[in-house]
């Protein structure tokens, strides 16, 4: 279980997170939703140890993650697929995927996991040799998730995987997230596509101006007056 406990995070003097707490239990899909600037990306970056909280703790079971390096967090199996894909644009798709399995433990599993990625994303198989920067937006998102899977994640954190995709691709993306979860990967899903995310998720948290303002099961949140008004425009 991943437990984020009362973390405070600031960029210089500007505080972005104010006592954020949530947990992701093994096997779950947990959605973290909120408007632009709510602090979703900041939260994921802090879990990945790219940012340090000034207070609070992040725990993976009994293991503290908030004093680790980003490398250690990856080695513990907490993998982030960052906002905007962040592929290595001048390398081939295949090289990008191989880099996803860079850690020593992951290297031994690479060929097996490559197969696994191509099973989930058959469209990527023929594009292995293509330079990542020339892939379409949808292909890039698949590649980014595939690269995350190459690490053999215990917990996969996806930052707005549906961003900038055509409606049909958005649906496909959510289907894939469910499939990955069914294959045994715990998921922390950051989304602005509130409706789809909450429909998919077992539980969700609503982040507003750096604070968790609501939490509950996906269904509860979808039925919540405030969520319907503020995020679903109903």
């Amino acid at each position, binding site marked *: 279980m991943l437990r984020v406990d009362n973390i405070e995070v600031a960029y210089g003097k500007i505080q972005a997170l104010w006592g954020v707490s949530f947990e992701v239990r093994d096997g779950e899909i947990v959605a973290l939703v909120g408007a632009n600037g709510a602090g979703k990306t900041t939260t994921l970056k802090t879990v*990945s140890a790219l940012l340090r909280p000034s207070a609070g703790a992040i725990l993976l079971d009994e293991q503290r993650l908030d004093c680790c390096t980003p490398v250690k967090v*990856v080695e513990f199996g907490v993998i982030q697929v960052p906002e905007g894909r*962040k592929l290595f644009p*001048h390398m081939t798709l295949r*090289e990008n995927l191989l*880099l996803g399995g860079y850690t020593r433990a992951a290297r031994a599993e690479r060929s097996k996991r490559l197969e696994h990625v191509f099973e989930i994303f058959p469209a990527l198989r023929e594009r292995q040799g293509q330079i990542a920067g020339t892939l379409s937006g949808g292909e890039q998102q698949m590649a980014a998730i595939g690269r995350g899977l190459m690490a053999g994640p215990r917990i996969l954190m996806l930052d707005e995987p549906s961003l900038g995709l055509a409606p049909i691709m958005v649906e496909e993306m959510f289907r894939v997230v469910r499939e990955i979860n069914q294959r045994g990967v715990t998921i922390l899903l950051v989304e602005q596509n509130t409706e789809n995310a909450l429909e998919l998720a077992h539980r969700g948290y609503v982040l507003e101006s750096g604070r968790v303002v609501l939490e509950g099961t996906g269904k509860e949140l979808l039925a919540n007056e405030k969520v319907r008004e503020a995020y679903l425009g109903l």
Partner: protein
Amino acid sequence: MTAAMETLIQSLVNGVLTGSLYAMIGVGLTVIFGVMRIINLAHGEMVMLGMFSAYWSYTLWKIDSFLSAIVWVPLFFLAGMLAYRYLVRAIMPGGELNTLLYTAGMSLLIANVALFAWTGDYRTLNLPYAVEPLHPFGIAVPVPLAIAFGLAALITAALYVFLARTDTGRAVRATSQNPEAAALMGINVERIAMITFGLGTALAAAAGVLLVPSLYLYPTVGEILVVKCFVIVVLGGLGSIPGAIAGGILLGVIESFGAVYVSVAYKDTIGFIMFLLVLLFRPQGLFGAARS
């Protein structure tokens, strides 16, 4: 072959041979820039130190200067890693202007210590087997330059294989393309930066070792070399390795043609005029903005 034709081919060959060594120096500067966003103004001094290392190996211990590369290149790789760890890393958060000024200071310091230790005398190293040039197809090819070219090509090819085929090499490229994403892959970005600084330093020193039988050697030779480096990376586009190779060879050829068709005295000036023209009309470099 007509005399004019012969002169043309002769200066082209000279240019490519010298250019291969410029390319190596430029690649060193460019890999460091790619990963760390540092323009290392002390890069020319690394070449100078490589030259002196090979020179002393030969004059003091009678070790062939080319052979001495086997010892010096790994040593400079280590020295580069240590320099990064203990001298460069701490000032990295200061931003690009700070690192630029800092490496300029290092450059002055190294050159002046060398001046103090070895005086400002011009030295040359004459290898016994290098007196008579080779004459393939009626073109005169100086032996030391031919050997240097062969070794430079070998080293550059090895670097290419390292970057293209090994995990660490891929990590170097990943870090230069997106350091934050690289960290999310579990790449230790600090370690990669250290290795890259070591690599860049080793390339510069290797070029120095290879150049010493072909160039005058004096403690401030790095000044002119680092300026050439700028010309090379601007020609090729800063951060691009193929660009640096092409830029280096192009500069070698331009200088060589300049020396033959204009005047030896203007050899360097012609290179700099090219540099200004490229900056004015194609600031992204002759070969586009590609970074790899």
